[in-house]
C-alpha cells in the first residue's frame, strides 16, 4: 500500500476527530444513540418492577423465580437459533412442531424402547439437526420461501407427533432424563439453604462479566473506538453485576441454580460469541443485509442458509427435550404456539424483519419480557384472553418503538 501514501496524508486526521467526539459525548447523548439497546433492558426491569408490586412480591419470590427460569428456558433456547434465522433474512414457523415431535420421539424411545437417556439425547439432537437441514435444503438450494417451507414443516411435524404418540400422552420418564429440566446444581459445600454454590457461581459470573467488559473497554480505548462515557460504563456494569448476584442469592434460598439455567447461560454465551466475534456470525449478518453483495464477496450464501436452519432444528430439538422433561410426559399438544412466542421474542429484542439486524442479547431479553409478562399475568389471575391481547400489543409497541427511533435517526 505504500504507493498509495499520497492519499494517506490527505485524510490522516480521522482518528483524532473520533477521540474528540468521544470526550464530548455525555451520558445523555450516549443513551440516546443506544436507546434501542438499553430500551428493552430497561423495559424488562420496569415490567418486572410493575409485576413485583402488583403481585405483592410474589414475582421475585425464589420459588417463582425458579419457575420463571424453567418456564422460559425452551423459549430462550429457540430464540437463539431464531435470531440467526431472522438475521439471515428468513423465518422458521416449524420450531414448535419440531420441538413437540422430537419430545414425542424421545418419549417413545425412553418409555417404549427403554433406551438410556445418554443415547436418546444425542440421537434426538441429531434428529433435530436433520429436520432443520431438510427444511434448509429447500430454502437454501431451491430458493423456496422459508415461510412456505416451514409452514409445511409446521403441519407435517404436528401430524407426525400425533402419529408417533398414537394420540396418547407418553410418560413418565426415568429420573435421569428429568434432570435435564428439573435438576438443580447440588450445593458442593453441603450447606443447602442458602445454596452457597449458587451464590458463588453468581458472584464468579458477575466478576467475569465485569472483567471482560473492562478488558474490552481497555482494548477499545487503545484503538480509540470507545464511545461509552466512563461513568456510564461503571454504572451499567455495576448494576448488571449487582442484579446477577442478587438473583443468584434469591435462587440460592430455594434450591439453587436449575440445570437448564446453566444450559441456557452457556448457550447464550456461545451464540453471543458466534454472532459478535466469528467469521460465520459476521457472514450471516452480511447474508441478511444484502444477499447478492455477500455472494459476490465470495460468501457461500446457500450453505450458510442451510446451516442456519440445521442449527435451528437442533435447538428446537433441545427445547423439545427440555419441555418434555419438565412435564415428565410427551403430549400431542406439546409445543403448540411456541413458534409465535419465539418469533415475538426475537422481534421484541430488536431484530429486523428484512434481515441483517438483531442481537442475541436482545432476543434473550425479549424472551424474558414475554416470560415475565406470562408469569406475572398468570399470578394476577388475568384470563388467557386478555393475556394474548396484552402480549400482542407489547410486540406491536416494541416494533413501533424501533421504527420510530429509526425514522428519528434518519
Amino acid at each position, binding site marked *: 500500500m505504500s504507493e498509495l501514501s499520497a492519499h494517506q496524508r490527505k485524510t490522516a486526521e*480521522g482518528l483524532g476527530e473520533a477521540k474528540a467526539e468521544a470526550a464530548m459525548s455525555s451520558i445523555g447523548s450516549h443513551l440516546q444513540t443506544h436507546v434501542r439497546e438499553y430500551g428493552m433492558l430497561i423495559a424488562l426491569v420496569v415490567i418486572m418492577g410493575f409485576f413485583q408490586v402488583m403481585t405483592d412480591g410474589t414475582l421475585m419470590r425464589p420459588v417463582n423465580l425458579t419457575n420463571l427460569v424453567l418456564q422460559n428456558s425452551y423459549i430462550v433456547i429457540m430464540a437463539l437459533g431464531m435470531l440467526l434465522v431472522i438475521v439471515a433474512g428468513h423465518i422458521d414457523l416449524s420450531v414448535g412442531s419440531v420441538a413437540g415431535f422430537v419430545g414425542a420421539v424421545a418419549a417413545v424411545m425412553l418409555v417404549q424402547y427403554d433406551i438410556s437417556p445418554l443415547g436418546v439425547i444425542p440421537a434426538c439432537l441429531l434428529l433435530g439437526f436433520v429436520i432443520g437441514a431438510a427444511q434448509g435444503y429447500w430454502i437454501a438450494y431451491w430458493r423456496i420461501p422459508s415461510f412456505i417451507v416451514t409452514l409445511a414443516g409446521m403441519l407435517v411435524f404436528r401430524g407426525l407427533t400425533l402419529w408417533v404418540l398414537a394420540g396418547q400422552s407418553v410418560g413418565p420418564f426415568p429420573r435421569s432424563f428429568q434432570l435435564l429440566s428439573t435438576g438443580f446444581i447440588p450445593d458442593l459445600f453441603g450447606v443447602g439453604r442458602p445454596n452457597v454454590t449458587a451464590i458463588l457461581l453468581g458472584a464468579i459470573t458477575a466478576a467475569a462479566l465485569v472483567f471482560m467488559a473492562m478488558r474490552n473497554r481497555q482494548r477499545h480505548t487503545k484503538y480509540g473506538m470507545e464511545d461509552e462515557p466512563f461513568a456510564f460504563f461503571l454504572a451499567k456494569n455495576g448494576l448488571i453485576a449487582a442484579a446477577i448476584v442478587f438473583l443468584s442469592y434469591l435462587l440460592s434460598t430455594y434450591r439453587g441454580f436449575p440445570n437448564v439455567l446453566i444450559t441456557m447461560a452457556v448457550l447464550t454465551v456461545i451464540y453471543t460469541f458466534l454472532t459478535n466475534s466469528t467469521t460465520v456470525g459476521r457472514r450471516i449478518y452480511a447474508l441478511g443485509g444484502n444477499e447478492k453483495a455477500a455472494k459476490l*464477496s465470495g460468501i457461500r450464501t446457500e450453505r450458510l442458509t442451510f446451516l442456519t436452519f440445521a442449527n435451528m432444528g437442533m435447538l428446537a430439538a433441545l427445547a423439545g427435550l427440555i419441555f418434555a422433561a419438565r412435564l415428565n410426559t410427551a403430549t400431542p399438544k406439546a409445543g403448540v404456539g411456541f413458534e409465535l412466542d419465539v418469533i415475538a421474542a426475537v422481534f421484541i429484542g430488536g431484530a429486523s424483519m428484512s434481515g441483517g439486524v438483531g442481537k442475541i442479547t436482545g432476543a434473550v431479553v425479549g424472551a424474558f419480557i414475554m416470560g415475565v409478562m406470562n408469569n406475572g399475568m398468570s399470578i394476577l389471575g388475568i384470563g388467557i384472553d386478555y393475556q394474548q391481547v396484552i402480549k400482542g400489543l407489547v410486540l406491536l409497541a416494541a416494533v413501533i418503538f424501533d421504527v420510530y427511533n429509526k425514522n428519528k435517526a434518519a
Partner: protein
Amino acid sequence: MAWKSMEPILEMRGITKSFPGVKALDDVNLKVARGEIHALVGENGAGKSTLMKVLSGVYPHGSYEGEIFFEGRPVAFSGISNSEKIGIIIIHQELALVPLLSIAENIFLGNEIATAGVIDWPETNARTEALLRKVGLREKPSTRVDTLGVGKQQLVEIAKALSKEVKLLILDEPTAALQENDSEKLLDLLLEFKSHGISSILISHKLNEVKRVADTITVLRDGRTVSTLDCQAEQISEEHIIRDMVGRDMAHRYPERTPKIGETLLEVSGWNVWHPLQSERQMIRNVSLTVAAGEVVGIAGLMGSGRTEFAMSLFGRSYGRNISGTVKLRGSEIDVSTVNRAIANGLAYVTEDRKALGLILEENVLRNTTLASLMRVARNGVIDNAEERQVAERYRRALGVRTPSVFQKVMNLSGGNQQKVVLGKWLFTEPEVLILDEPTRGIDVGAKFEIYGIINELAGQGKGVLMISSEMPELLGMCDRIYVMNEGAIVGELAASEASQEKIMSMIVRSKSNV
C-alpha cells in the same frame, strides 16, 4: 434576455437546513426565471437533493429556515402533495413507477380519472396517448412498465408529471442511467417544454449536458450557493463550472500516468455465455481479451451490449449458463468457477450497482471493508477485532474515505465514498486483476478524480485493470487500450493513441449492420 426582467417563478431565500451535527444547507439562494432551464450542480453532498427536498415539501415548512416564493407568493408546504398541487413536480433519480402496472395506470396512479371510484378507461387511455405523444414515446398505454427500458420509463415519469399540470419540473440526475441517444432525446424534450413555458430545474453531473440546455447554472458547494452563472450572457467553460464545484482548479480531469506495461496478466479466450433463463439465447459470443500488468484496459459499448454480463460470468459464474472458455493468469489456466476461487486466483470485481450488489448498507465501513477476505483478519474463525480495525483504518486512509469513523454505516456515506469503500474491500483481497464496472457512476467530479487517481496508482503497482464504462470520455481519458463490445461480442480494439468517440461509435454501428 426578456425573462430576466420577468418575475421569477421560484425564489428560495436564505434556506438553512440542519441535521443533528451537520448543516446541510447554509443560507442558500436560488432564483428560477419563468420558462428557463436552470441547472443545479455540485459535488455529491453539496446539498442539491436536500434543497430539492425542502422545495418539494419532503422536509415540511418549519423544519428549515428561510423563505420560498412561488409565482410571487410565499409558500409553506407540509408535504409533497402540497407542492404537486401548485405545479412543482420532482422526478427522482430512482424512478417511482410500479413495474407490474401499465403505462396508463402508472401515469394516473393516485390521480385516476374516475367517477365514484370507477375508472373511466377510454378517457384514461386517450389522455395517456396524448401525453405519450407529447414526450415522444411510441408505446401503447396498456404496455406494462417493466417491459420498457430505463430511458422509456423516464419518459413515462415525465408524462406523469405533465398529467399534473406541471409549472416547474425538477429532474434529479435524469440521464445518469441513460444511453447517449436517450439522454439526447430527454434533453431535447426539456428544450421543447421550455418553448411551451414550462420551467425546469436540472440536477446533473454531466456538464456537457448542462452546458447544452441550461440558461442559468447555480453551483452549490458544502451547502452554500457558490455562484450563479448566466449561460446566455457569457460563454461558460466546463472548467469554470468544475472550479466552482470543487473549489479548486482542475487542470486535467484525468490524472496523468505514464504506463509501465509489463507481461500479460489476464488472458480470456473463447468465452461464451448463455442467458440464465432463455437457454437458446447466447449473451456472450466468443469473447477473447487480454490485460497486461500495469495496463488499464477499457470495454466500451452501449448499455445491454453484454459488458456486465461478461464480467459477472467471468467472476465466479455469477451470471449465465453453459459458460465455456478459458481464463489464464500469467499464462497458466486458473479456475474461476466460484466467486471464492476467482478471488483466490487474483480476480476482483467491483460491481456496477454498488448499493444493490456491492455493499451491505446496514453495516459499517469496517465490516464492509473486510467482508470479502474475513479469513485474513481471523484465526480459526474468530475475528481479531484489533487487526480488523487496523485494516479498515489503513484502507480508509489510503483511499481517502471521508467518514467520521470506520464505524459509520455505509448508507450514510456519499456515493463517492461508498465507491471507495467497495474499492477498499476488493483491494484487501490483494487481487492481480481488478474488473471495475462503471466505477464512477453517479459520483461527483471531485470523487471521480480521486477514483481515477486510485486506478492509476493500482496500475502503477503492476495490477491489471479492466474498466467498463458507458462514459466514453472517461475510457478515452483513462485507458491504454479499449475493446469495443456489441451484442455480446468484441467488435473492435483500439489503442489509446488511435481511439476516439467517433471511432468507437462507428465500430458499434457497423457491427450492427453486419449482424
